[in-house]
């Protein structure tokens, strides 16, 4: 595909053979997904059609590339993936052809050319323990992030590592990993957490940015409310089983086969906010709970340290049985000792007791 920076998004889509009809369908789907009024559809269409392909710089730090895999590996050429193709992805060290100095030059050139206008996408956390833990072309993650963020119009943190620290940040956090939001305070940041996040969520955020030039409404931890506004538990199709008290006890019992609630198998749905239950994965094929696995809570901060994926959220994380037995044993010993002390106090009091006779009273 020839990437001409002067082509609008509409031009690019037409050159890809996307009909006006399917383009408008995408706009309508995007509007409904983001809970906008139908009146917004033509505005989205117009904004997208006339948008110059925005320059996007994608930085990958301490990450596993799962986020990139999720966002780029669509099974068929969906319109989302074309939209994604139609941004000017000027730097992405996994996807770009250039390597070494040429790659870094591409980043610097894009920054210079689009200063103040480009979108910065970050996946992966930033190690603060030692700059040498993760470097790109000899530049530490911290230096690269701070330098690139300077001219960014907005920063999109993709994946739980970039948004909240993710796996690198998990206890005991050997690299001193921090999130993008921990370091950048003077730019608008959109957090798109998930391990990995749902592809349509990132295209939705991009569409919003292209249409309105603003960032969508965010929740208290920086996530777009349209996608992270409802808990998995509230939107789960297995919720009626939870309410009826019907649970799968193991992964292969009758309950599991009948598709009952996975709460007892450790499902973090009640404390997790994400769009999986409605948007689903792999072009709407399925999602973890539908395939029989409890939600891990991957779009929430510190989900690795939540006390075990297969332990339900209402049960203690420590071995309380052992604690209780030790406490009981200790207390029984203490109780016996206290009882003995009370008894000896009583008997010494009885021994020290002087009987008062009538003679004493008449003295």
């Amino acid at each position, binding site marked *: 595909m020839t990437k001409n920076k002067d082509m609008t998004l509409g031009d690019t889509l037409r050159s890809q053979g996307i009909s006006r009809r399917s383009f408008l369908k995408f706009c309508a789907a995007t509007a409904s997904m983001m809970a906008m009024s139908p009146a917004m559809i033509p505005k989205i269409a117009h904004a997208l059609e006339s948008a110059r392909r925005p320059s996007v710089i994608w930085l990958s730090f301490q990450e596993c590339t799962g986020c990139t895999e999720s966002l780029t590996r669509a099974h068929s050429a969906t319109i989302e993936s074309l939209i994604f193709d139609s941004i000017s992805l000027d730097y992405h060290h996994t996807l770009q052809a250039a390597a070494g100095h040429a790659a870094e030059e591409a980043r610097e050139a894009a920054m210079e050319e689009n200063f103040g206008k480009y979108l910065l996408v970050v996946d992966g956390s930033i190690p603060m323990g030692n700059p040498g833990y993760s470097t790109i072309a000899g530049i530490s993650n911290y230096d690269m992030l701070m330098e690139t963020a300077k001219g960014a119009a907005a920063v999109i943190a993709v994946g739980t590592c970039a948004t909240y620290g993710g796996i690198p940040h998990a206890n005991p956090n050997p690299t001193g990993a921090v999130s993008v939001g921990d370091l950048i305070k003077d730019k608008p940041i959109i957090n798109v957490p998930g391990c990995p996040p749902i592809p349509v969520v990132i295209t939705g955020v991009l569409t919003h940015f292209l249409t309105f030039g603003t960032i969508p409404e965010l929740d208290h931890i920086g996530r777009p409310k349209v996608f992270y506004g409802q808990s998995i538990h509230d939107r789960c199709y297995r919720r009626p089983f939870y309410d009826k*008290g019907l649970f799968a006890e193991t992964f292969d019992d009758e309950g599991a086969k009948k598709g009952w609630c996975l709460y007892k198998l450790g499902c973090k749905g009640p404390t997790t906010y994400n769009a999986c239950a409605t948007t689903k994965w792999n072009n709407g094929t399925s999602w973890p709970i539908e395939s029989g696995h409890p939600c891990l809570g991957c779009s929430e901060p510190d989900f690795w340290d939540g006390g075990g994926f297969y332990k*339900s959220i209402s049960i203690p994380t*420590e071995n309380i*049985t052992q*604690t209780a037995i030790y*406490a009981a044993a200790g207390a029984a010993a*203490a109780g016996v000792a*206290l009882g003995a002390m009370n008894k000896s106090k009583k008997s010494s009091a009885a021994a020290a007791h002087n009987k008062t006779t009538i003679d004493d009273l008449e003295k």
Partner: protein
Amino acid sequence: MSEIDFLSWVRGPGFQIAVIIFIAGVIIRFAEILFLGRKTNLAEAKGSEMSSGLRTIVTRSIPDRSTFKRSTFTVVAGYIFHIGLFVTIFLFAPHILMFKDVIGFGWPSLPTQVVDAFAVVTIIALLAVLGHRMRNTVLKFLTTTEDYIVWLLTILPLITGYIAFHRIGMTPTTLLAIHILSVELLLVAFPFTKLMHAFTVVLARWYNGAISGYRGVES
């Protein structure tokens, strides 16, 4: 401290501390009561202590007619909130999971909507008994600060649990952590306040019956 740290603390060390204080406190208090011993009764026994004691455990749990007439409100509201506490604590699926984890076995749960309804009724009953206590001059005079604290510690887990279940206001993680913390406060206060009656009630009723049984009179 992040909210997940907060939840991890109340599910981990916080819960451990609360359980240690609760279990140790209850056992020590029981040991103190039992080791006090009883004076040898020199009078001849005119009946069985045990059968009268056991019977009294049951009969004293059912209000007699005159008591019911005199304090209908106290009896009815008292029964409602005690039954409500039993249902919300022991028949809610996530709670049963916790018990199963600690004591090794579980039991069937009630549908969550049923438990939810019980929780609402229990909260109303507890508010009503407080209102009654404040309005009734004699009761108000007899009420100590401890009574108000115990009332608060009892209603807090119900309210925080209700809010956590319906996820009102804060994130579910924080709400769940607050709920567990409120239960831990209750556990810590339990052995050192009148909440101990949950255990001593059986012993006390048995003893009341046993005294009468020994004398050969109806308890």
